[in-house]
């Protein structure tokens, strides 16, 4: 069921804050779990500059990948991914697509269109 290394080996060897240089990402509005992260052309060019988890994140975002997926793929807590992605975003290496519901919250017509699209997609599965 779970492929987490931590559960197989009884714990990871590096404590999470080590990966983020001690930062917790507190104080900023956290990226949504389903926000999509994609490597930019700049990120592609500078990818050899990144190390460890940041390099893994960049490698996994050649196609758009959600924050929550990155956490599962890298087997690190969501908070670590959020901090690292925010850094990569600041450096222009990745771009982040927020979930669409919030900007649309005040726009019923656009939201209704989106819901119809979701419905069509589900019915066509």
């Amino acid at each position, binding site marked *: 069921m779970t*492929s*987490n290394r931590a559960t197989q080996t009884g714990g990871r060897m590096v404590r999470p804050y080590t990966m983020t240089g001690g930062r917790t*990402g507190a104080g900023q509005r956290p990226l949504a779990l*389903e926000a999509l992260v994609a490597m930019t052309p700049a990120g592609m060019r500078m990818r050899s500059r990144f190390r460890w988890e940041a390099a893994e994140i960049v490698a996994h975002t050649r196609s758009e990948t959600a924050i*929550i997926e990155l956490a599962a793929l890298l087997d690190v807590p969501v908070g670590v991914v959020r901090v690292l992605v925010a850094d990569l975003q600041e450096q222009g290496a990745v771009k982040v*697509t927020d979930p669409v519901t919030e900007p649309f919250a005040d726009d019923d017509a656009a939201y209704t269109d989106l819901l119809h699209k979701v419905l069509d*997609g*589900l019915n066509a599965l």
Partner: protein
Amino acid sequence: MPSERTGLTPVKIVVAGGFGVGKTTFVGAISEIEPLRSEAIITEASSGVDELFPEGSKTETTVAMDFGRISLKHDLVLYLFGTPGQERFHFMWDELARGAIGAVALVDTRRIEACFPAIDFFERRGTPFVVAVNTFHGHRLHTAEQVREALLIGPEVPIAFCDARVRVDVQRVLVAVVEHTLKRVMSGAVAS
């Protein structure tokens, strides 16, 4: 932090219910990826998800979230999130529900009370939800009206029966969720 819009739009539906009711099975029946498990580090007393090391806290623990993904269109992807079942993790539900287009309250009629917290939560929050009775034990023991009475939910909340292992059943429940949300949006009563 400005975000640019790229080609793909993410949406999500939350699947809640008591511990062991079949949330992971439900997600796995329709997800195009194996349901994945992701961790957040929290403290027992924490009120937010994933502040990695809240000041002064010594009792950090991890909580697992199951999720799945369904590509709906070339530019639209649906994420399904199973809520952590244990009561001490209920504070996480708010983050999971934020921005969700709707929710499923999964019910096992043998332990009907296990879904009360989920129903209370979605009602309080104003998140549109559908009650899905998991019949994976083979028998439909109750009618929709009996379930409605037992759960004390109003006539506006749709009730569906599904086998959480069966893809088409899960698909039907998700369709019901989106239809219900559409109805609520049209009538002007939706929280996001």
